């Protein structure tokens, strides 16, 4: 029963899928193909990300993370958050578990948010892809607007999130 409860969202969608197949088979097959495609992507990208975060958790001492990305890390912390986020591969959902490990290791909240922002939108592999498909004017304009945007959004979010909620989020990260 525990497993059913844990996977209820997924099971519900599988049910929707089955109903869909009865109503419109072509549509169902199309949706199935796309799902298969995303599953493949997940299977490819997810294992290394999680292994890396496991290694990070075990090998990098808290003090090191605090020193370079903690409360007093200043500009270096911001740059590191941007670089680490941009060097990432994989969809945004992969960023959250990594962010949880960062929080466990005492990384400053605004830097965690900058990391999430960078992962979401300035990833280097994606940028190269964007450059070739949409042209340099498009990709560079987006990059130059995005970098300050990510930092500003992270700072505003940090400002407007009450201290108690931040503490709660950090506590939650311990359990992940």
């Amino acid at each position: 029963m525990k497993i059913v409860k844990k996977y209820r969202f997924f099971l519900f969608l599988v049910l929707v899928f089955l109903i869909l197949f009865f109503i419109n088979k072509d549509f169902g097959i199309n949706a199935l193909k796309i799902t298969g495609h995303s599953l493949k992507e997940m299977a490819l990208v997810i294992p290394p990300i999680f292994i890396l975060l496991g290694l990070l958790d075990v090998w990098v001492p808290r003090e090191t993370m605090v020193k370079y990305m903690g409360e007093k890390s200043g500009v270096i912390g911001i740059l590191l958050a941007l670089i680490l986020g941009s060097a990432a591969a994989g969809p945004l959902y992969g960023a959250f578990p990594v962010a949880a490990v960062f929080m466990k290791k005492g990384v400053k909240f605004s830097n965690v948010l900058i990391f999430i922002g960078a992962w979401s939108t300035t990833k280097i592999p994606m940028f190269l892809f964007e450059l070739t498909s949409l042209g340099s004017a498009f990709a560079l304009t987006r990059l130059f607007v995005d970098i300050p945007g990510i930092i500003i959004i992270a700072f505003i979010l940090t400002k407007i999130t009450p201290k108690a909620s931040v503490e709660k989020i950090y506590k939650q990260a311990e359990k992940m």
Partner: protein
Amino acid sequence: MNIALYVVTGILLLLSFWKDKKKTIKALKKAWKSFENILPQLLGILVLVGLLLAVFNADVISSIIGTESGWFGVFISAVVGSITLIPGFVAFPTAALLLENGAGYMQIGAFVSSLMMVGVITFPVEIKYFGKRLTMIRNVFAFFFSLFVAFVIGKVVGGV
């Protein structure tokens, strides 16, 4: 890029194993635990994405967001980008295709930006880590920021 990721991970894993076997096993256990933690939501999301993309294919999208569609088109593009979750290697060629089929630069800017920054479908995962309030606020900010990005791209690239 995937290959590079695998090579780096493989080397680090070997190095770790050579230095300390116990610690490495602990790291792998942690990796599995983190993965198992988000797996239920992840599977649900992938199925949902399949359903949504079957509805919003390139034809449907390009028919809504032509150059003439103006701010309404930008807004619609941002909404579509927010609710869909398309891997980059599909998204950029799709975006290029949409441009060829008559979509405007501003609209594509809104689509690409919101696609990457706003994740309505990944809400369940994000909430797990950051709570409801912050997840909502972050995504709302990212949504409006995407409209701003669209505006700048329209000015610079589209010359609107």
